[in-house]
C-alpha cells in the first residue's frame, strides 16, 4: 500500500489547518405541524444544536470533541462531512470553502478526502451486501480503479490492513463480531484514500478489550497514512489516550479548547472541571468524587447568558445575563487554549491543578 503513494500529495504541502470551521451553526426546526401550531397558538420551535462554533484542525492532528448527550458534538461531525448543511457559518477543507461548492460534482473531490466512521457497527453496514462490496463502494463511486480484479485486490489489501483476512470479503456483516465490523467500517472509510477521518464514538458500542484493539489500530493507521482525525466521544479516558487537542462542548457551544495534557491537568472552565470529576478512579486512590448536582438543561429552552450557569458554583449576575465568548485565558495558557467563562476571565476562579497520576500506577 505504501508503494501506491497513499494520496496524491501536492508538491509542497500547503501551510494552514486542514479543517477550519467558523461561526458554525446548525438549527433544527422541531415545531409541531402547522395545524397544531394554529390550533394551539404555538410558535415555531427551533433547536439550536450547534450555535456558533469555531475551531481548526491541523494536518496529522487528532482533535477531539467531548460533551454529554445533546451537546451537539455529533452534529458538528455530520456538518463537517456534509451529512447536514450548516444553517450559518463556514467550513473550510484544505483552504476550500465547502459552502461555496453547491453541486455534488464540485464537492466529490473533497468528499473523497474525508470519510466517517460511525458509532454503531451493526447499523452502519448494509446487512445484504457482502463485505467486499461494502468496502469497494467508495472505490467505485470515486472511480479510483478500473476492473473488478483490481478493485478486489485493493479490497483484500484494505482488509489485511485493518487486521482481517482478504478472504473475509466474501462474507456478510452478520458473520462478524462488533469489533470486526468496526474494522470493516474503518476499511471502508480508508478505501477512497482519505486524509481526514471523522470518528463519531467509534468505540462506544464495543467492549473494553475490543476498544483497545480498535484504538491501537486507529493510532497505527494514523501514523502510517498520516491521517487527521476528528474524534467525537463522551469517554474522557479514551479522549485522553487518543487526542492531541480537546474541545469541550456544552449545549451547542464550545466551553473550552486546550491541548490534551493541559486540559486534563489544568482545566479552566467549571464544566470541564466537573467532567473531570466524573471520571471513575481506577487507580483507587480513595479520592471521593463530588457529583455535581443538576442535569443538562433542555436544549430547546437553554438558560440565558452562560448555558452552564444553573449548575455552576461560580455563577454570578453577569453569567446569568451575558453569554461568554471563547477567548485566550488572561494568563496566556498553552498555545491554542480558549475558554468561554466570565469567572475565568475575571480571575474569580481558583486555579485547579491536577497532578497527573504517579507513574507507579502505570503497568
Amino acid at each position, binding site marked *: 500500500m505504501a508503494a501506491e503513494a497513499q494520496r496524491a500529495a501536492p508538491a509542497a504541502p500547503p501551510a494552514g489547518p486542514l479543517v477550519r470551521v467558523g461561526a458554525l451553526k446548525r438549527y433544527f426546526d422541531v415545531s409541531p405541524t402547522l395545524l397544531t401550531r394554529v390550533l394551539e397558538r404555538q410558535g415555531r420551535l427551533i433547536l439550536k444544536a450547534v450555535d456558533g462554533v469555531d475551531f481548526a484542525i491541523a494536518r496529522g492532528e487528532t482533535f477531539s470533541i467531548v460533551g*454529554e*448527550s445533546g451537546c451537539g458534538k455529533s452534529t458538528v461531525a455530520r456538518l463537517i462531512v456534509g451529512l447536514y448543511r450548516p444553517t450559518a457559518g463556514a467550513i473550510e477543507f484544505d483552504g476550500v470553502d465547502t459552502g461555496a461548492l453547491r453541486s455534488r460534482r464540485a464537492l466529490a473531490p473533497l468528499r473523497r478526502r474525508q470519510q466517517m466512521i460511525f458509532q454503531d457497527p451493526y447499523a452502519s453496514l448494509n446487512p445484504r451486501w457482502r463485505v467486499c462490496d461494502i468496502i469497494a463502494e467508495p472505490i467505485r463511486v470515486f472511480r479510483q480503479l478500473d476492473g473488478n480484479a483490481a478493485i478486489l485486490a485493493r479490497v483484500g489489501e484494505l482488509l489485511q490492513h485493518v487486521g482481517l483476512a482478504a478472504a473475509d470479503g466474501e462474507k456478510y456483516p452478520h458473520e462478524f*463480531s*462488533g*469489533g*470486526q465490523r468496526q474494522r470493516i467500517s474503518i476499511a471502508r472509510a480508508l478505501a477512497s484514500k482519505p486524509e481526514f477521518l471523522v470518528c463519531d464514538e467509534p468505540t462506544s458500542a464495543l*467492549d*473494553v*478489550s*475490543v*476498544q*483497545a*484493539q480498535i*484504538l*491501537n489500530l486507529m*493510532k497505527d493507521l494514523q501514523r502510517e497514512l498520516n491521517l487527521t482525525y476528528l474524534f467525537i466521544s*463522551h*469517554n*474522557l*479516558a*479514551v479522549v*485522553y*489516550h*487518543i487526542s492531541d487537542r480537546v474541545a469541550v462542548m456544552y449545549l451547542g457551544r464550545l466551553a473550552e479548547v486546550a491541548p490534551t495534557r493541559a486540559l*486534563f491537568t489544568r482545566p479552566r472552565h467549571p464544566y470541564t472541571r*466537573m*467532567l*473531570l*470529576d*466524573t*471520571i*471513575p*478512579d*481506577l*487507580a*483507587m486512590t480513595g479520592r471521593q*468524587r463530588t*457529583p*455535581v*448536582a443538576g*442535569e*443538562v438543561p433542555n436544549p430547546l429552552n437553554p438558560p440565558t447568558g452562560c448555558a452552564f450557569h444553573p449548575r455552576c458554583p461560580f455563577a454570578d449576575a453577569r453569567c446569568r445575563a451575558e453569554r461568554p465568548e471563547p477567548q485566550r485565558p488572561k494568563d496566556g495558557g498553552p498555545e491554542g487554549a480558549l475558554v468561554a467563562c466570565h469567572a475565568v476571565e475575571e480571575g474569580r476562579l481558583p486555579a485547579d491543578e491536577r497532578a*497527573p*497520576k504517579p507513574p507507579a*500506577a*502505570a*503497568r
Partner: protein
Amino acid sequence: MTPHSTAMNAATDPPTTRPPANQPLLQVEDLVVEFPTRRGTLRAIDGIGFHIDPGEVLGVVGESGAGKSLTGAAIIGLLEPPGRVAGGRITLENERIDGLPPEAMRRIRGKRIGAIFQDPLTSLNPLYSVGRQLTETITTHLPMGQAEARRRAIELLAEVGIPAPERRVDQYPHQFSGGMRQRVVIALALCANPRLIIADEPTTALDVSIQAQIIALLKRLCREHGTAVMLITHDMGVIAETADRVAVMYAGRIAEIGPVRQVIKHPLHPYTVGLMGSIPSVGMERARLAQIDGAMPRLTAIPRGCAFNPRCPRAVERCLADRPELMAKGTSRVACWLHGG
C-alpha cells in the same frame, strides 16, 4: 398484582429474620444455565459459584456475552425462555430459591430481591404515573393501605433525590429526564426494603455527570439500609468506586474473584491482567493500550481446557486440556493453572 396476592403476602411474610452475620445472604453454587436450540444445547453459564454477604456490594464484570446478566436473571428467576437453570443451587437467607414456582418467585422479587436494569425507560410503565407504580409495588409487598403507601412513595422519591416529590409523584415517566427516571427505578427497587438488589448496568445508559450522581446515590442508600448489591457492569471504573469484591467473568465462568482493590491492582488471571491493561486511563501516557487479541469464543465453540487459552499469552499445555477451577490465591480465588493445581 391482585389484592389476593397482597393478602397472601401479609399473611406469609413475617418480618425479615436476619441470618447470623457469618452466613452469606446469597449463595450460588455450581450454577448452570442452558439454552436448548435446534442444533444442540448451549451452556451460557457453566458452573459458577459465589456468595454475597449481607450489606456487601459484589461487582460482576465481564464483556458482552460473558454471562454476567444471565447470572443476575437466573437469581431473580427472570431468564428468558428457552433459557433455563439446568443445575446448581441458589440460596437466599438459607432458603433455596431456584426452581420455585413462578408465583412464589414473584413474591421474592421486589420484596426480598430488588432489581435495577440498564434502561430506566423500559423498566417503567409509560401509562401509569410514577406514584401509581410505586404504591402498587408497596401494597403488593407490604401490609399498607393506599394512603400510607402513597406517603411512603413520596418519602422514597425524596430519598432518591427527586426534587418536589409531592408534585412529581403524580407525573408520568416521560416527564422525567433519564437520570431522574433511573432514580425512580431505584426507588421502586427499594420499595419493600429488600435485602439484596441486583443492578444490571444501572449507569450505562446515562451521561457521565449523571452516572456519578447515581453511583453516589446507590452507595449511600445501600449503606443506610444495609442492602447488599450485585452490581453487574462492563465498566471497571464503576466497580472500582462501588464494589467491595469483584467477580470477573469470561465465557460463562468466573475467571477471578476477590477484594476489588486486590483484583484491580494485582490481577492474577491473564484475562484480568489484559482487561485492566486495555482500559485507557487519564494521566497514563501510553503509546498503545495492552491488547488481548481475538475475541471471546461463541457459545458454540468454547475451547477445551481453559476457555481463555487461545488468547492467553501464558498458556501452557495443561491449559489446552484441563479446565481450571477456582483456586485460592491470597485473598482472591482464580481459575488459572499459573496459580496452583
